[in-house]
């Protein structure tokens, strides 16, 4: 099959369409997902083609959306729920951590919840409050959930299909800032890597930089810039946040001896703290410096006019890289 250049939004839309074609049990539910196609148009055209029974416009209630999706899952469906913005997932938090996450365990495997909860996450779009959050740690801390974040159009296409095919509930994080940004070449005939794997996206020898979702682009740009200063940075796209796929990370850090992790979420108790702790436990004698963390500051998300100061950027990543190398 010939390839085509697509955006992340397009990749996700194509992936959702493919999943619905492949399995009649796949349903989509959320606010404005139907006629409007979602505020980001990720479900554009799907209600028209699959009908209102499979692409379900919901009342304005996130707990209701996730709670009823659980019921549909128990009836044998595979609901894909869209949360309109990261900041609006919290009304559903109880249903997610107490029900979605625990039903398989509670029932000794008799209940299956093959649900995907799609969350456009992260900042940088100049939005008002609650539209730029990064809630991943609040889900990754919860056993029973799996949490992944895509960072590019091709992964978006494959990962959403893999998440829907998974028999476990998956929190699916989409870097909204990149929905309509860079295009990439998609070959639908290719075979994707397994969903719950991290990936080395740039080889390097001096420092390992770990990223996921929106910060992968930042990390790659940083690596490029550093190379002109003769620094060789290895970049790993974590892709899966729960479970974490630490194998490639350990392998890399044992070579470089240095690691920096960057995410938009607050540093305090963000993914970086867990990744740093695990690296230190596993690679203690290989470490030339402590794992450094570059993330959102430990303040609420600020007014958008200064959000770029709040968010990790190329300079702050390179600053951490330098500090790591100076250790």
């Amino acid at each position: 099959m010939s390839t085509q250049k697509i955006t992340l939004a397009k990749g996700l839309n194509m992936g959702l369409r493919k999943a619905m074609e492949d399995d009649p049990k796949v349903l989509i539910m959320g606010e404005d997902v139907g006629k409007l196609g979602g505020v980001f148009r990720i479900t554009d055209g799907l209600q028209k083609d699959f009908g209102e029974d499979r692409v379900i416009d919901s009342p304005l209630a996130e707990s209701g959306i996730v709670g009823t999706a659980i019921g549909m899952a128990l009836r044998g469906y595979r609901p894909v729920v869209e949360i309109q913005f990261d900041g609006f997932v919290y009304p559903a938090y109880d249903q997610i951590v107490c029900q979605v996450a625990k039903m398989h365990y509670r029932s000794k495997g008799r209940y299956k919840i093959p649900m995907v909860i799609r969350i456009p996450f992260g900042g940088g779009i100049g939005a008002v409050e609650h539209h730029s959050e990064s809630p991943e740690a609040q889900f990754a801390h919860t056993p029973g959930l799996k949490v992944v974040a895509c960072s590019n159009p091709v992964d978006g296409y494959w990962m959403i299909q893999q998440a829907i095919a998974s028999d476990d509930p998956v929190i699916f994080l989409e870097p909204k800032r990149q929905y309509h940004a860079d295009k990439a070449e998609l070959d639908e005939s290719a075979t994707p890597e397994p969903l719950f794997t991290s990936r080395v996206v740039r080889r390097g020898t001096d420092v390992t930089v770990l990223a996921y979702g929106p910060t992968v682009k930042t990390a790659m740009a940083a690596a490029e810039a550093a190379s002109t200063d003769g620094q060789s940075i290895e970049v790993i796209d974590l892709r899966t946040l729960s479970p974490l796929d630490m194998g490639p990370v350990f392998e890399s850090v044992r070579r470089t001896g240095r690691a920096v992790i960057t995410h938009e979420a607050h540093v305090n108790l963000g993914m970086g703290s867990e990744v740093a702790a695990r690296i230190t436990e596993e690679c203690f004698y290989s470490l030339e410096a402590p794992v450094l963390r570059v993330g959102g500051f430990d303040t609420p998300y600020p007014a958008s006019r200064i959000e770029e100061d709040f968010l990790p950027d190329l300079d702050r990543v390179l600053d951490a890289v330098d500090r790591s190398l100076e250790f």
Partner: protein
Amino acid sequence: MVPLICVPRHKRWEQCQHGDRGDPARPSATKESRLTNPGFGPDLVEVFGPSQQDGGPDLIQLLTPEGERVHHPEFDLDFSAEQLRGFYRDMVLTRRIDTEATALQRHGELGIWAQLLGQEAAQIGAGRALRPQDFVFPTYREHGVAYCKGVDPLNLLGLFRGVDHGAWDPNENNFGLYTIVIGAQALHATGYAMGIQRDGAVGTGDPERDAAVIAHFGDGASSQGDVNEAFIFAASYNAPVVFFCQNNQWAISEPIERQSRIPLYQRALGFGFPGVRVDGNDVLATYAVTQAALQRAREGQGPTFVEAYTYRMGAHTTTDDPTRYRLSDDVESWKLKDPIARVEVYLRRNGLVDDQFIADLKAEADELGHHLREGCKALPDPKPLDMFDHVYAEETDEIRAQREGFAAYLETFDETAGSH
């Protein structure tokens, strides 16, 4: 109609007074105040009226507390002697399950038990109205409904003993696992009903196929956002679900007045689907109303709210002490409304049971009690390593590693330690 509560209005009412000026509503919401503030919607008098204090004029009853068969213009049914004896047997056995479990808790065999004493008619009436293809989403107190659905009562004890979180297979009996987070299951029930719609199993006219869902919850649960969102989704999609609320007047120590100042069944009207209040201590009326509601759902006429007006005769759970917050004469007055006694009186008065039947049933109940006592003590404890099972459908390396690590750690103790 015989009021269901004899305790004077003010006693219960005191329990939700506030000293604030402008509190409480009732005094100010009189006809007179309607005149001073006209136009604020219909039914003010009904809304603030005293109907909260007894079953109210809308209470549906087919068998009085005195065992007298009364008739209802809309919900009357003819019950065969067989059916009536069946209800009686069901309630007697259900009460036995409850008293045995309570005793097992007292003897330290269970960590806690949620008693249903006094709610047998509400649960049997609802449980017997179900068809095999209907699905039940219970709270943690629906032991009688579980029994109707064919769940071995022994399986109910596991989670109260602490050996599991629910031992039965929900799909075997179409009876979901107990839900402890108040109200959460109301949404699951609604979603499941939406699944039934998508399966085309509503309104086909095929009695084997058309299915409904019943969501059980309590009066306290009616205050949870999730339950109200379930009403909204069910109405919006016209889902085939029956919301069955056992209003046993208490949410632990909170009286029903704290949750609603009007009869609870009226809540449904605000969401655009019917609500009805039935005497939850009257198994005949509860059966008649619930099966009509389920039939409405199966036919595609959407959700119904059924308030089974009853009373929690025991403590909230075996760890609760109701003497701290409620009046014993309140309980005494409800003893006169016992759901089992009224059926026995009716059966005997009409010669539908003899001493032999009662004796056989007693023996059957003793058998059941024995089964529960022996079975409970024999319930196997989980093994430490079991805690790592079923976290995911597709187990992760992380869980595998933690299991192996803990297994190796346990190995370091003497053999017995491995299984603590």
